[in-house]
């Protein structure tokens, strides 16, 4: 019975060509360790670095903005979420998922929709505008993460939302880059 359950996990991971999956609280130390794991597994050439950049950005997004949190071993409050890295043979697919409050989901959705309307030069201009201004209220980074992910993937990024319960929405990001 237990073997059957584990076989299911194994089969899902195998079919989806998953290189790495993590679900839990993402402290900075965990982000760094997952990054080391990726480097040990894949090396650190220019294409891996591009994927790695997206991976770190998604991981730090979950850490900073997930509505579901826990206290990490270093005492800091960190976001909980899931990170999945898959290899399709020609591309890396970097995925993240975490809960957001329903009210914030609306704001986030508007922001994501806006990003998807921008072409390369408009993205660059928007990036420039953001980097020169103060981070948006509530931002723990530079407020540039989603913009840079969109730029780095050449627009191959998909934002999605799934209902979770009365208070929360599940927010996912799927970014694809060439291997």
């Amino acid at each position, binding site marked *: 019975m237990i073997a059957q359950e584990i076989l299911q996990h194994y089969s899902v991971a195998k079919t989806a060509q998953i290189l790495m999956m993590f679900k839990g609280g993402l402290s*900075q130390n965990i*982000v*760094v360790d997952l*990054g*080391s794991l990726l480097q040990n597994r894949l090396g*650190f050439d*220019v294409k891996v*670095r*591009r994927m*790695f*950049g997206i991976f*770190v*950005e998604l991981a*730090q997004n979950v850490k900073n903005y997930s509505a579901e949190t826990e206290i990490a071993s270093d005492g800091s409050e960190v976001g909980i979420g899931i990170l999945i890295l898959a290899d399709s043979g020609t591309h890396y697919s970097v995925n993240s998922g975490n809960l957001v409050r329903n009210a914030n989901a609306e704001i986030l959705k508007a922001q994501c929709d806006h990003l998807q309307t921008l072409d390369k030069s408009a993205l660059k201009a928007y990036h420039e505008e953001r*980097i020169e201004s103060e981070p948006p209220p509530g931002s723990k*980074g*530079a407020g*540039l*993460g989603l*913009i*840079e992910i969109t730029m*780095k993937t050449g627009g191959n990024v998909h934002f999605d939302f799934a209902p979770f319960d009365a208070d929360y929405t599940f927010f996912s990001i799927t970014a694809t880059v060439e291997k």
Partner: protein
Amino acid sequence: MESLIINQTTQTPRIAFDAESGNGEIVGVSFPEHANDFYACVNEWVDQFFAEDATRTLHVAFNLNYFNTATTKEIRLLMKHLDKHYTEEKSVHVTWFHEDGDEDMEDIGKGYSVSLNVPVSVEAV
């Protein structure tokens, strides 16, 4: 004044600014939890370097192969800081190293070389 030396870690670059020679370098990867705190000391060191002797020359070499978006912002601030000193007639030179074939890093360096007054030479290694 003292040199500024911070050893490289898996998430932060080596930072080495030599007070005697005026050579500074930032080498490695950068995705610290609090990028603004991490880089603040570099701006302070640069101010102190020129406060002691405004006629000295500062060479700053960036040799990073990956940094996160929060670091992007801090590097921008540091570049603008160096540019400010340059426009105040201090002698400042910047070299932006990138791995041969790493177009993302090359483009960032070239962006600085056209947008700033301080000379930024972009070199493949």
